């Protein structure tokens, strides 16, 4: 009996939320200005903790494309977006960059080992070299950390590109498990005829 109640409750929520997200792109769609035009492959959906969506779109050779991501403010921090081709090559990503996190961790470990070495050496040329290295690694870490912060708190919200040939692009959107509540994510695709590259 409890399961039946839960089922109807899920159905109820699904209906109510999916309806509200259908209109999510309406305002933004009307904001697409000439020579750009709205592309019918745009999509919006409801997102909550743990949800993943994959939207496969076709981009034609001879057109320039912009994919803009519009996310409800309440879930923005917990949404990861990745645009890849069919082979998995990443062209655009937002959210936590796992590679960058790994690099920072490695650099911090390296810094620690350099600092330990520096403690053992009191003076001399080796000491000066080590201190210079430590400063360089610290600078690198600080650069990567600010990059990470930038991605986390001020992510790019659009991706403009020209496909070399007609190709399939896969837009992956996922909400992390830390996501509290629900919100909408809109993928607004617009295109325009590609400008000629030569005479």
């Amino acid at each position, binding site marked *: 009996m409890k399961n039946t109640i839960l089922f109807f409750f899920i159905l109820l929520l699904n209906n109510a939320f999916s309806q509200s997200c259908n209109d999510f792109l309406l305002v933004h769609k009307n904001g697409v200005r000439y020579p750009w035009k709205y592309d019918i492959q745009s999509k919006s959906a409801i997102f909550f903790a*743990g949800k993943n969506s994959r939207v496969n779109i076709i981009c034609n050779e001879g057109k320039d494309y912009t994919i803009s991501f519009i996310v409800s403010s309440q879930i923005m921090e917990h949404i990861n977006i990745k645009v890849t081709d069919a082979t998995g090559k990443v*062209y655009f990503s937002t959210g936590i960059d796992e590679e960058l996190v790994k690099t920072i961790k490695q650099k911090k470990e390296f810094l620690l080992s350099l600092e330990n070495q520096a403690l053992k050496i009191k003076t001399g040329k080796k000491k000066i070299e080590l201190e210079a290295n430590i400063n360089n690694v610290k600078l690198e870490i600080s650069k990567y950390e600010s990059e990470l912060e930038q991605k986390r708190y001020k992510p790019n919200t659009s991706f403009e590109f020209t496909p070399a040939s007609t190709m399939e692009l896969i837009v992956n959107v996922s909400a992390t498990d830390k996501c509290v509540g629900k919100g909408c994510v809109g993928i607004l695709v617009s295109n325009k005829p590609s400008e000629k590259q030569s005479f």
Partner: protein
Amino acid sequence: MKKIVNLFIGISIIITWSCNSSNQTQTIDQNDTIADTIAQANEEVFYQVPSPDEFISLLKESKAPFKANIVSPISDYVLPLKQKMNLGVYAADMAYLATYGKFQETVRYFGKIKSMADNLGLSNAIEKSAMERIEKNITNLDSLTTITNNSFYNIMEQLKQNSDESTVASIYIGGWIESMYIALQLVNKFEQNNPIIQRIAAQKLALNNLILMLKSQKNINNELLSWLNSIQSLYEIFNSIETKTEEVNTSTANNKVIIGSKTTYLINKETYEKIKNIIENYRNEIIKQ
């Protein structure tokens, strides 16, 4: 407890009814478990297909000349599937006529699409003022294509909002086949490097998404299933075309990010003729009464 269940059922019915503006009914499979529902809700895959006007506009960009009398004559269809597929056919025809600046003809096809949308219960999809705006902008090509394209997009979006997946798929099949038919009619002579032929071969990707879109439908009817089988066999032919790929590193040229690789389709005349014949047969099947 029974009262609570009844209350939830009642509220669900009211919300389901109020959220769907068309008169569709949604059936719930009794065997669906709650776990299935949650799993499905957590993982979604959508296959999108470009609108017919996207492909048609590229034909003009490829310097394809306009040919008269290749669009489907306007007719009335009785069978629901025919009505839907031919709405897609007329959308492609309208895009072709609008792209090439055939103003009066475009208005005629627009009028037909509007009445077909009304018959599908989508009278709100095309604004009442649209026809008036078209007549005012009849000599402005950009305005004409914008109004006609947006009207078609509104129809498709309203259908998607109503979760009328089978109608969406039927319109896409009709629109895709008609736009391919138009492209094939604009080719004067087979040459592998003809830009229109290269564009036709590249439509394999859109066809694949169309097939996957159909396959992802939960309750596909027998008529659509038959079309799915037909376009799948067509895809096999497209898939047999070998390609030559030149790597283009993600680069910035003239402030533009170029992505992907340059693909040339090594299509031969035999395969081209096979595709042409099949498309013509499918198109004739769709437009016949």
